[in-house]
């Protein structure tokens, strides 16, 4: 654990540096304009077609249209605004969701016979997902004001500690 933490300490500044560098390099053109533009342009794009659509086309079409718009907006916001490191966390979370869904599917299809094993496997994914989400929340810049006592390093140490406990319980419960 100590090693892990040390590694984390060492990697975090460098990683931060690289992510910053990469984000600036990859999206240098939009990034410079992104914060003001992303706030303004999607609104404009969202608002300008929707009244038009409402007046011209039917209600259902408007609904559909705005729904697509919403999803697009979310996706673009996500791609533009999220740092590389957080995206890594998100990939991990997506992986956990996939694994959890797979286990659940197996349980539904093949029966839950070793219920201990299923429960500990499933709750390991759920727990890890939640802990990762907590880490993601705590390390996001926008949430800084909510967590005055938690620095990113502290968040990572907490995350490792909680994960250790989680997996200890899971292994103990798996039979």
């Amino acid at each position, binding site marked *: 654990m100590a090693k892990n933490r040390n590694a984390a300490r060492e990697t975090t500044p460098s990683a931060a540096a690289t992510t910053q560098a990469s984000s600036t390099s990859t999206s240098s053109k939009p990034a410079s304009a992104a914060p003001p533009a992303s706030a303004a342009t*999607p*609104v404009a794009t*969202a*608002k300008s077609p929707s009244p038009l659509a409402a007046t011209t086309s039917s209600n259902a079409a408007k*609904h559909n249209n*705005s*729904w697509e*718009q*919403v999803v697009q*907006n*979310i996706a673009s*916001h*996500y791609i533009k*605004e999220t740092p590389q490191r957080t995206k890594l966390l998100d990939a991990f979370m997506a992986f956990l969701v996939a694994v959890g869904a797979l286990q659940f599917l197996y349980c539904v299809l093949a029966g839950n016979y070793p*219920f201990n094993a299923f*429960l*500990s496997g499933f*709750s390991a994914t*759920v*727990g890890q997902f*939640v*802990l990762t*989400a*907590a*880490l993601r*929340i*705590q390390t996001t810049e*926008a*949430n800084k004001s*909510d*967590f005055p*006592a*938690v620095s990113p390093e*502290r*968040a990572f*140490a*907490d*995350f490792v*500690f*909680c994960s250790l*406990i*989680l997996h200890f*319980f*899971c292994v*103990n*419960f798996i039979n």
Partner: protein
Amino acid sequence: MSANSLEALASAGKGANTRTLLRVVILCLIAGAAVASRLFSVIRFESIIHEFDPWFNFRATKYLVANGFYKFWDWFDDRTWHPLGRVTGGTLYPGLMVTSGVIYHALRTLTIPVDIRNICVLLAPAFSGLTAFAAYLLTNEMTTTDSASAGLLAALFMGITPGYISRSVAGSYDNEAIAIFLLVFTFYLWIKALKQGSMLWGAMCALFYGYMVASWGGYAFITCLLPLHAFVLICMGRYSSRLYVAYCTWYALGTLASMQIPFVGFLPVKTSEHMPALGIFGFLQLVAFLSYVRSAIPGRQYQTFLWLFAGGTFAVALAGLVIATSVGIIAPWGGRFYSLWDTSYAKIHIPIIASVSEHQPTAWPAFFFDLNLLIWLFPAGVYLCFQNLADEHVFIVVYALFGSYFAGVMVRLMLTLTPVVCVAAALAISSVLDTYLVAKAPAPPQDLNAEEASEAPAKKASKGGLKSTSKPVVGVYSYISKGVVVAAMTIYLLLFVLHCTWVTSNAYSSPSVVLASKMPDGSQHIIDDYREAYQWLRQNTREDAKIMSWWDYGYQIGGMADRPTLVDNNTWNNTHIATVGKAMSSREEVSYPIMRQHEVDYVLVVFGALLGYSGDDINKFLWMVRIAEGIWPDEIKEREFFTPRGEYRVDGEATEAMKNSLMYKMSYYNYNALFPPGQAQDRVRGARLPDVGPTLDTLEEAYTSENWIIRIYKVKDLDNLGRDHSSAAAFERGHKKKKATKKRGPRVLRVE
């Protein structure tokens, strides 16, 4: 009380160091007071385990210490619930035993040789000191100022309030002994986790929650309260990512921790009691996701998104719930739980739950008896929580509502209400004292200052917003009002201490294994029949002689006499208990085959008529009848035990069913030999008994204790000549009457 005056001094202390030192000293003194006030029973009687359940815990602890943890975990006990046995290792909450086992081994390695019994006796007082500390921490989270007066008061209240002492005197070695500490400390950690939004505190909260689950069935209180708090916060629009972090960490880790206990096992995902926690967990994921989306897109689009998303999720969740319930994956609510909503539910459906006195609804005076002045300060404290309503104050409000309801439903749940009453009352008192003492200045100098600089304190006090202080008043006037209020509070607090001590010493310090009575000259007389009889069993019967008794005494027989029993206080098998009830309430001809089938060697009854001891088996008899009637409604009928006029009588007018029941016969067998003819009297029920006592054919008297409280009968073997017992007994009586009377002689009450 010392806390108060010292607190005033504490605020007078110049540096932070002095204050810290004073706080530590005060907390140590409070812990000392908490321990000391629980030692009445040890001083008055001896270091002995009390009551019923503690005897089982004590026996289990001895098993753990002797055989090690793994054997304890796999313990199958064939000496209870004969012939079924009990998977004890998987059906108990091991936290208490493991705690004392760890303390025992720790002291051994420190080369302090201490008896395991003394550890068990003193565990509850020791943990009450820790509870006081936990209450201090919890209350300090509620106050924003750095003066710890509320916390110290809460610690003091928690330490000596009778509502908690009732379950934690020395010798009361029950799960509640450590569970209340864990309850308060888990709440403290939860508040801490919620305030800081830290995963570490959430994990600590989960670990202590796991410890709590290992210790007491009342953990469901936490399982329901924390989700409720989270839900109320969300409904108030106070969702924050701190709440997400704290709750999800607690739930993910805490649920896994609770599933490690074999007795709990899969319950957290299967029973309805645990569903609110799971539901809120899922709900928080949604809320978190939504709040992320809200930060990502403008408000108008967010609304359409919200409607679609929420509608879809709701439909899916509803369908899932319906399917799960109809297929039967989620078990319906348990009987004990139903009885929490409908107080007459247990009386109708589950007599075995209703028969336990601590499951009865609380009487109003009990609140005042157990909490004294705190109970009327409690609403004031809750009101103060509303004044600056932060997340943690919402917790106190929710806890207060929840706890008050449950305390009203069940006497024993007074215990879960006590912590929040202490916290709220401490908040109320400290705000009164802070307002009237002007906490900034020390008490004695402030009195001097009050006259010469009367306006300054008045201005200071006006911040408190009280009408009387905000008016421009003359110096002397405010001095008097301050003095009156402070003096009144001081007197109340002193009276509280007096009340607590009085209640503890009079109501809660009796071991109930050993009874005390006053002799005419005022000296104390110890009635020790229980231990006398159990010792007789231990010394005069085979080691595997089965003892049949009502379930109340099962744990004591197992613990003190070390003999196998048919039923005990772990009432897991209602049918088996009903069988014993049937044997007790039927005629001898019916009971004898039952006893033979269960290999019963001795029958034990508790009989208080001679001494006027009201907790005896004849008074509990109706419960035996009711429980047996629940299984065999054709053979046992409660109505038959009442006279046509609806009276429950034991004298000459008793019904035939009553007179012929085994319990009645065993209780009053030979009893009239104690008295002059026609004078036999039952001092509990105030009845004069018939001249001719009952006869017993299938049992013979084996032992009767000094004050006749415990009577033990031996079950006769089958007759040598193949006769049935009644004819054999009639033959004996007819021909050997003279010899029998000579052998018995008149019964004399032994007086020593």
